[in-house]
């Protein structure tokens, strides 16, 4: 049985540092297994969040060797043998303790999005092809790795002006729903701050559910915003015909 050196961030709001732990490694182990082994054998008070160990609950988000990842989906054999593995909490969220961060800001953003609102006389019939797009977005497990990596939040602290990729995905799932009757384009442009996204695709790179966040959600939403606010011919036509959407 081989061993591997882990550096795990330990601390709280006041400060912290990377602490070394040597872990006995077995075939098929993931980073979360190693963290549990450390908890069990070396540091009983090591704080981490987890639930499913199956990449489905979105609880175990962290930064492994600097990359935002789910600890339960990150296999040790993804790393070169002998390479030290560094585990840090998500850096864009306030620290609670060790690997646990306060992600409650996300829930306040979520409340700003008007939920699914069908027309009063809706016929509840949908074709599969009409819900394919929304279903991709419904795969989201709310791990918030995309929110963590997004530079609008991580680097520029624009939490008060930008919903972040996870919630643009949620808006996309509602806007593209065949039975929804609301128009959230104004919300996207103003409060949602979709123009702050510069489509550099880090959200897509880290999404463990492999949702095409930028290509299938954000860019199509940006195009809907263009239709309404930036396309001069379309705006002129709308003024002339007195038409609106939805």
């Amino acid at each position, binding site marked *: 049985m081989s061993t591997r050196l882990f550096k795990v*961030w330990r*601390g709280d*709001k006041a*400060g*912290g540092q990377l602490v070394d732990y040597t872990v006995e490694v077995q075939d098929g182990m993931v980073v979360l297994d190693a963290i549990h082994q450390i908890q069990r054998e070396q540091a009983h008070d090591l704080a981490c969040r987890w639930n499913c160990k199956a990449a489905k609950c979105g609880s175990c988000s962290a*930064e492994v*060797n*600097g*990359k935002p990842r789910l600890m339960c989906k990150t296999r040790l054999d993804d790393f070169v043998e002998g*390479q030290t593995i*560094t585990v*840090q*909490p998500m*850096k*864009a*969220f*306030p*620290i609670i303790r060790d690997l646990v961060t306060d992600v409650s*800001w996300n829930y306040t953003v979520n409340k700003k999005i008007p939920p699914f609102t069908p027309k009063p006389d809706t016929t509840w019939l949908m*074709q599969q*092809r*009409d819900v394919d797009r929304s279903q991709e977005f419904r795969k989201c497990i709310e791990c918030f790795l995309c929110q963590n*990596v997004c*530079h*609008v*939040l*991580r*680097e*520029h*602290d*624009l*939490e008060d002006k930008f919903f972040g990729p996870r919630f643009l995905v949620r808006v996309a799932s509602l*806007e*593209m*729903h*065949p039975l*929804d009757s609301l128009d959230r384009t104004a919300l996207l442009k103003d409060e949602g*701050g979709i*123009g*702050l*996204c*510069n*489509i*550099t*695709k*880090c959200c897509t*790179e*880290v999404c463990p559910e492999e949702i095409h966040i*930028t*290509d299938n959600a954000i*860019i*199509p939403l*940006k*195009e*809907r*915003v*263009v239709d309404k*606010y*930036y*396309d001069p011919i379309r705006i002129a036509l709308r003024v002339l015909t007195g038409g609106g959407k939805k």
Partner: protein
Amino acid sequence: MSDSTSVLDRKGLGVTSRHDTWWLSPLLIFLGLVAFGIYSTWAAWQGKYYVDTVHGADYLSPFYSPDIHSLLGINVPFSYAFLILWIPLGFRATCYYYRKSYYRAFFLSPAACAVGEPAGRKYKGETAFPFILQNIHRYFWYLATIVLAFLWYDAIRAFLFTGKDGSLHFGIGLGTVIMLVNVIALTGFSFGCNSLRHLVGGKLDCFSCSGSARTRYKLWGGVTILNLRHMEWAWVSLFSVGFTDLYIRLCAMGIWHDVRIIH
């Protein structure tokens, strides 16, 4: 979220906990775009050697198509390529893929994921001038498609060669093949455009609610296939357009002799 900065650094130029070669991809993109920028500016500046008519060929460089100079008899005091090139330049500069690549490689915003950015800039993304202008991308698509139609004409025209008696006959040269491959690459790039994907069908919320919606769903599906590889099409077509100009230029200058596959 500022209280975690003191304990876990994440901001500032190049600040990261990543151990991999995250800088390689932006560096290669930077070099690739700079190399193309230098070559294309130089080639556009020349104002000559853009048509190869050696041995009956009629190859027109994509940088100089449509040939406004011959078509309309327009004379300008500079290379007329500049009358055209703002269209493909604007099209690529506002393309969602190129935006990603130059925001990363030139503006380091961010250079790579989970890597800190240069400090001291007030970030506005695409909400303020100049980047708010990215929203007119679809108009560049319309214009670029007109140019693309001329490039198809040029590629088909490259199958015709002028004989010694002045008559036209069918033939294929290496230049013909290069021009054809180039225009296919450019078409693959243009027709995988995200704005087009929206306009042909993506803007609909229901794909099966009418006959036209069903047709548009198919169109959307077609654009989506190309869109999945939009980055690859972007690079292949960028390289092919530069290489096509170079090939025709070398032939026109007499440095290289076009290989005739079918006379």
